[in-house]
């Protein structure tokens, strides 16, 4: 078999994850050496309908996008969800906390009924089609992305951590940001980012989604210890993947 053919597609998102692919710089040449990149709208003009691997960035927010992603799924042997918007719905899911008509009207006012402004409940890609691999994060971690690609080439199931961000944070010797009064979601968020944010002194806001088995009871305990309002924790937990919904579907 020749090189696997890869196509990259985007849906509703900031395209920051694709940008991380561009940010691979020279390593892109390794990537294009191992794969045939046949379509990548953000970076090249070539387009193709034939591919083995589809990399899909962004959330599904419109009926027509649902059709489009189903179509992509039909053609691809392997589908990779790229980044939080695709894996868990990401920031786009915040919209689901409101009534849709109201959201449209808030943004577009009297014009909100125009058909091209239509929108639907935000879904992660996995809520519409089967996803084979997830590259978590907002944005994705470049090393994790290429690691997963190499695993696919090797026929190996990538080892994505089941444990929370605290593990990587402690190994780095960071000062826990709770001590600075920040509500950090590290204890319930899936590791793999190298505890990016706490390593910069910033709270983890859960962009990689929650671990399979988060202990919400324990979280309440901490909120009490730090004299905080459980509402604060709930609001923070809504930021990515909008809340307490399971992040794996």
């Amino acid at each position, binding site marked *: 078999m020749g090189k696997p053919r890869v196509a990259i597609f985007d849906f509703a998102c900031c395209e920051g994850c694709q940008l991380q692919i561009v940010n691979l710089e020279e390593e892109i040449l390794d990537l294009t050496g191992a794969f045939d990149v046949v379509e990548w709208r953000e970076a090249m003009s070539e387009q193709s309908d034939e591919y083995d691997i589809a990399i899909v960035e962004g959330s599904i927010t419109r009926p027509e996008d649902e059709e489009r992603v189903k179509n992509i799924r039909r053609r691809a042997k392997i589908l990779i969800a790229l980044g939080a918007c695709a894996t868990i719905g990401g920031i*786009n899911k915040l919209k689901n906390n409101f009534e849709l008509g109201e*959201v449209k009207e808030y943004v577009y006012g009297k014009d909100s009924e125009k058909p091209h402004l239509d929108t639907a409940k935000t879904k992660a890609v996995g809520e519409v089609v089967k996803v084979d691999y997830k590259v978590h994060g907002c*944005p994705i971690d470049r090393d994790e992305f290429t690691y997963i690609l190499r695993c696919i080439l090797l026929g190996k199931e990538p080892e994505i951590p089941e444990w929370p961000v605290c593990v990587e944070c402690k190994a780095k010797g960071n000062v826990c940001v709770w001590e600075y009064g920040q509500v950090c979601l590290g204890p319930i968020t899936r590791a793999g980012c190298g505890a990016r944010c706490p390593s910069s002194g910033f709270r983890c806001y859960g962009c990689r989604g929650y671990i399979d088995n988060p202990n919400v009871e324990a979280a309440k305990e901490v909120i009490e210890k730090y004299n905080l309002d459980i509402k604060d924790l709930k609001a923070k937990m809504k930021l990515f993947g909008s809340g307490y919904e399971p992040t794996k579907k």
Partner: protein
Amino acid sequence: MSQQKSKKIRIDVKHLTRVEGHGNILLNATDGRIEKIEWQVPEAPRFFEAMVRGHSYEDIQIIVSRICGICSITHSLAATKAVEDALGIEVPEQVDKIRRLLHYSEQLQSHILHIGYLAAPDFFGTPSVVPLVGKAEEVVKTIIGIHRAANNWSDVIGGRTTHPITILPGGFTKIPSEKEFKELYESLKDTLGKLKSLASAIETVAENIPVFERDTEYVSLKQTDPSVYTFYHGDITSTDIDGGTVPVKDWHGVANEYVSDQSTAKWAKWHRDSYAVGALARFNNNAKLLSGKAKETAKQLGLEQGCCNPYMNTIAQLVECVHVVETSLGLIDEVLTEGLEEHRPVSKARAGKGVGCVEAPRGILFHEYEFDKDGRCTGADICIPTNQNHANIQKDFEKLVPEIIDEGEESIRGKLEMLVRAYDPCISCSTHMLNVEFVK
């Protein structure tokens, strides 16, 4: 003409490539008569202004950074300025300097991405940057070198290249160490050299930049005290108000946004039917304040104040690259001489309303928020540069197409695509505009 067969042109570019976000170009013409010419934005709308409501002032930056992956630092800074304005938070002098350094890093990151990866293939006649390696390897290496330096720059101050994680209302969670600043200084010096050789390379293909002019209004920030080529502070100015300024808080009177049938993004107009923002607008308003080497680069590439060839925006970006790098060398010097001060800001919620305005790589950007007494957001209004350019792109199309209608479909298509790319549109971020009136 005796020919019986009418000559039809049908251009329908769906999802224009090598731009950030989705845009379509539609042209129908018969025998040189234009029936329809449209710039459309079908990107899925994302409704940020509605989504931030109810969230704490602390989390606004996290949310709105996701408007755009390419200018996430700019959005984060604009939002943070607006939050600080609303909550009455003071920012120490040094924090302000380091923020400007961070902001400059993104100008370089974004500009070089556009010049090198998205526009250069047009100049050199390849479909993307990958085949360009074969054609002009040295140029690609230079581009990659600058791009990496820009990314590392954002990384060291912002915590990562995209969606920064060090910015808090009032300051930073963490600032670079002295050693890191010194390394950054060296890397920027090196970058300045690389920019010079890139400018020379671009000079060799400058004849591929189409000659086209359309007089329009150029809007940007302007700072008078002190007088600098600004991206971060200042008031609103325009080529139509003769050096005058409008305070940032009155921005609604500038970006008179409206919804077009062609677009999920909103459009804007001020003194005329349309206006332009971005590197060329900043240049046209502030060129005299550019750094020495930036002025030289402008001269080398034939860019003069008053230029109204939209294709030259890419050149203006290159000039700005030189400017931000050269200016940052001075800023780093200042910061190191003053000595680094760790300062962990603490902020408190209160009710208020505030505006934050900065120049995104693509042009002037407005963020406005209102908070209740617990610091929860009750209303938001964001106006993105690309939106302010949409109408101008449409007007350019309308003037350009008749001028080139005889060049044949291929050439017309190429020039239209290249025109849109020259604006470096950031479409994904432009698709969540809102009411012109602030919603209470």
